[in-house]
């Protein structure tokens, strides 16, 4: 049982006692069954070709009369192929105390920063739950104390992050992984390892049609470097190495009519491979088509840049992303998304498709696909060159 789990259980106990005899809790959530079908046989010895999985996420919420609230969000996934993807996490277990000019929250929380669609450079508070999805938008719960000050000149957020969460990685039987798999313990720059206390601050404001955010983070990086080592049997293993970094981020957004203009940039120092700058800038345009009974079409185009020269650091070093979203606005909420992220230099990239529709009031069906394009030309994507897949998921909401 790790520290996060202990903390969550403690929070549950506190709530159970505090709530005793008061109003009922609100319980919601969803359960999902998914199947993944891979087009090709796996490349690496132990990998299982296809997989089936089940996940449950519930949200328990209680608010007291003085507006103090507690939210508990446990998450569990079982995966029949990859034992590393079978995992439990407390996504949230957090008290929130909102007042007129400030908000204070403490516990395990989730925070999102940023404006772009292809990648989320500025968003650094929560660790990525990498086994969940390739888009990096699924996050692990982060222990935190967060003070939000609301002033007439914008919002200030201060974070103290007392515990670090390691990124999740696929196990040896799982697809969509490096070779050899990353399944050994992490290495830290900090002597305190995962107990190093990290800090972050963010200022954000809205002025007319502009949104601006400036943030700074000091602590253990969420994005590890990868060390090639050898285990006691002289087998090669990849070990994630978490360095102490300083990262300053800016996110800007401007809305003009049907256009959204977006920019995210970060400057990070502290890593062995040197300081670097990365950005994601682009636009989003939305319009509706009267002849299609008012279907909405969204077009997204972004440019991604990373000043690091080594291909092993990031896939997105000089890439574009284009996306098309179609929302039919029908009773079933039918929607589809097509996207392509591709390198300008060597043409390596990822094509993704995602379509979903509601099946009655409580059910939803989703079809997703990732196709890797010219993957052999990119050092990182090369690991996934045989991993084109389709994913079908049925979700029940309660």
């Amino acid at each position, binding site marked *: 049982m790790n520290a996060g789990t202990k903390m969550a259980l403690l929070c549950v106990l506190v709530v159970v006692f505090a709530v005793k005899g008061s109003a009922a809790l609100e319980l919601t959530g969803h359960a999902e069954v998914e199947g993944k079908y891979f087009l090709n046989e796996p490349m690496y010895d132990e990998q299982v070709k296809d997989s089936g999985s089940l996940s449950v996420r519930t949200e328990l919420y209680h*608010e007291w009369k003085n507006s103090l609230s507690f939210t508990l969000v446990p998450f569990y996934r079982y995966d029949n192929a990859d034992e590393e993807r079978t995992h439990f996490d407390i996504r949230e277990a957090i008290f929130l105390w909102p007042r007129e000019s400030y908000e204070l929250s403490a516990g395990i929380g989730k925070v999102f920063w940023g404006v772009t669609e292809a990648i989320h450079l500025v968003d650094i508070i929560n660790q990525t739950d990498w086994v969940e999805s390739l888009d990096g938008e699924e996050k692990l719960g982060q222990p935190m104390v967060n003070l939000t000050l609301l002033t007439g000149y914008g919002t200030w957020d201060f974070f103290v992050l007392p515990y670090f969460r390691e990124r999740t990685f696929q196990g040896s039987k799982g697809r969509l992984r490096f070779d050899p798999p990353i399944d050994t313990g992490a290495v830290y720059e900090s002597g305190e390892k995962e107990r190093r206390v990290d800090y972050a601050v963010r200022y954000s404001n809205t002025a007319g049609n502009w949104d601006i955010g400036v943030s700074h983070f000091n602590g253990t990086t969420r994005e590890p470097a990868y060390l090639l080592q050898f285990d006691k049997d002289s087998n090669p293993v990849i070990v994630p190495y978490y360095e102490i970094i300083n990262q300053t981020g800016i996110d800007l957004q401007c809305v003009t009519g049907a256009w959204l203009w977006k920019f995210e940039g970060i400057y990070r120092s502290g890593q062995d491979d040197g300081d670097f700058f990365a950005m994601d800038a682009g636009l989003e345009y939305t319009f509706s088509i009267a002849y299609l009974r008012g279907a909405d079409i*969204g077009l997204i185009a972004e440019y991604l840049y990373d000043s690091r020269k080594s291909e092993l650091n990031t896939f997105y070093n000089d890439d574009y992303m284009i996306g098309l979203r179609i929302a039919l606005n029908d009773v079933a909420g039918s929607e589809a998304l097509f996207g392509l992220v591709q390198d300008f230099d060597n043409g390596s990239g990822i094509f993704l498709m995602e379509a979903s529709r*509601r099946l009655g009031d409580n059910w939803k069906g989703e079809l997703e696909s990732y196709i890797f394009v010219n993957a052999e030309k990119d050092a990182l994507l090369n690991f996934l060159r045989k991993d084109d897949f389709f994913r079908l998921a049925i*979700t029940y909401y309660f």
Partner: protein
Amino acid sequence: MKNIFKLSGKCCFRSGNISLFIVGFVLILMPGNLLPLSTCADTHGEGENKNKPLISAEQKGLDIAIEADQRDAGFGDSMVELTMILKNRHGEESIRKIRNRVLEKQDDGDRLLIIFDRPRDVKGTVFLSFTHIAGPDDQWLYLPALKRVKRISSNSKSGPFMGSEFAYEDFVSQEVKKYSYLYLRDEVLDGRDTFVVERYPGDPKSGYTRQMVWYDKQGYLIQKIDYYDRKDELLKTLTYKNYKQYIGKYWRADEMYMVNHQTGKSTRLVFKNYKFRNSFTDRDFDRNSLKRVR
């Protein structure tokens, strides 16, 4: 107050599922009877009229719209629960539930918060709009799965939403300045004396050439609207039912019923638990509040 309530920007690249649903509901939030249009009523022409014994049909139509608008000013804030019942031509029903909170602003458009409850897959999604008297509105969408507050662009919408027979503009465009007017006649509708006014959308992206509006003469409350499509054929009829008075002044319909004559589909919108004077402040309608609103 200008109630432009356009929603288009949609959600983020990957989590769009919610967005289109939202679009569907957004419109609901801004029916004229929810978000009274008020102080921006255009009263030019009053002076001219003093010297002219005859009021033109255009002026009379405008005057009626202004009067209806002004009678609803000063409500302060409100909240209400909405149920939307979509029925297709086979009689199959789908249910939507949302809650709507409005804060009236004296020198700007109203602030609007929409909380989505049903279907379950969009539960927890929240829409926030700062409407403006002039210029585009500021709008944000909160996506609970990502904890992301996403800015969305306000853009014109003429299509139906989620199979509902309400178009976005059916709600947003009831403000005085969005139309030009022509008074047609007096008429007795279901035993009520009414003014019949034709209005023409100023927005070239509107799905309508014209709308015929029945105002009852006593309260200047809209009783019925006929919508004519771009081919000038009768498309839909909206009926307002069971007006009730709140805090001694403000009238709200309990129900709105929209029938599409061309498809045979209909949508019933039921309003419950209207509450006024909730002591809402700007703080209840800021971006930070989206993350914790319930």
